[in-house]
């Protein structure tokens, strides 16, 4: 009986028609992504509702004019986005961000003033490395070889994200971490002005990122951090 059972089980096991495993995997990935997006949409709606309740109507105001126009990839800002207060982006901030985006898109060299002692590059609240101003002319030097960060797989580069995004937004000071609460700045640069560039709300949280540029009163860049959203 055992042999017969084994044979029958073998027959049953062979009944599945083999497909291209890459196709099966691709289909599974697409399903997973679609479900993730659906979860994020509901999560974002809940997050925004919580933010409105938490900050009150006084802080949910009209957005300042913070659009960035760079070359052919001019960006637009949807109205009515929640801003957590703080100073509005100045003309200098906008020019600085525009310079970084142009550099990311290889339109020209970085039109930013870097600190002589170098610029610290980091992820989220962590400053990981320091690069000399001369090194920063090379996009490869902006890459952080961290393997994993907030469920995203590295390496990470602020320039890559800025290059790939078409619809960007600038803010100054603490800002919501997409649907989550603001993330504090790295301890070493907390005293500096934080100018952030991130995609507009239409991209959803999965594609959300922020590149935070820390500048002093003279507009000299001391640190640049990248942060991503994780479910």
């Amino acid at each position, binding site marked *: *009986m055992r042999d017969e059972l*084994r044979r029958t089980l073998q027959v049953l*096991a062979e009944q599945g*028609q083999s497909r291209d495993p890459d196709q099966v995997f691709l289909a*599974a990935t697409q399903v997973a992504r679609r479900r993730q997006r659906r979860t994020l949409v509901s999560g974002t709606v809940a997050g925004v509702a919580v933010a409105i309740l938490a900050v009150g109507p006084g802080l949910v105001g009209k957005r300042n004019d913070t659009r960035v126009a760079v070359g052919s990839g001019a960006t637009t800002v949807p109205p009515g986005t929640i801003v957590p207060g703080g100073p509005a982006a100045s003309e200098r901030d906008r020019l600085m961000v525009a310079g970084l985006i142009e550099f990311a898109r290889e339109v020209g060299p970085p039109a930013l003033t870097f600190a002589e002692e170098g610029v610290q590059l980091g992820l989220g609240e962590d400053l990981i490395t320091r690069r000399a101003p001369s090194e920063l002319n090379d996009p490869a030097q902006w890459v952080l070889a961290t393997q994993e960060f907030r469920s995203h797989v590295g390496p990470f580069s602020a320039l890559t994200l800025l290059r790939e995004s078409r619809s960007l937004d600038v803010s100054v000071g603490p800002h919501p971490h997409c649907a989550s609460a603001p993330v504090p700045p790295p301890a070493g640069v907390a005293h500096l002005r934080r100018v952030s560039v991130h995609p507009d709300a239409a991209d959803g949280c999965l594609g959300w990122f922020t590149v935070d540029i820390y500048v002093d009163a003279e507009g000299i860049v001391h640190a640049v951090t990248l942060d991503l959203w994780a479910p």
Partner: protein
Amino acid sequence: MRFLRDTSSDQERFRQLYPRLLRFAAVVAPTEDDPNDLVQEAVAQTLRRHRLTDLQSPEHYLRKSILRLASNRRRTLSARRRANPRLARMSPAVDSHPSDLADLLRLPPSVRAVLFLVEVEGWTYRQVSDLLGCSEQAARARASRGLRQLRTALMEETR
């Protein structure tokens, strides 16, 4: 760089696992379902939470997931058949298979899984119990129950 974007290493891992997962899915899947769908769903559910390469044993994890999905599917289909007897008559019955296969397909997916893993793949009951999330004794009990049912069916057929 983005979440769920860099899946090349997972894809490579899955390519290696696929033939074994498909065989397992074919054993535990209800007759109405394509085993490939079970494998795909198990991978989709896993990828939402983990990268395959981050799991200690992705094969074990995926088999567990396939078995859970198969058991849920069987429960849903049974409930549907109970609620609608006409549907039960129209559904592709296990009786369309040769008698030995049909007898096997009447067993619950978890019992089929135990028998397949032990008899064909040579797993120990301890390993099987880990997959099923039960004690070793319970895994043995399921196997004996399955064998008893098959023996009874065989005896009835030969009578």
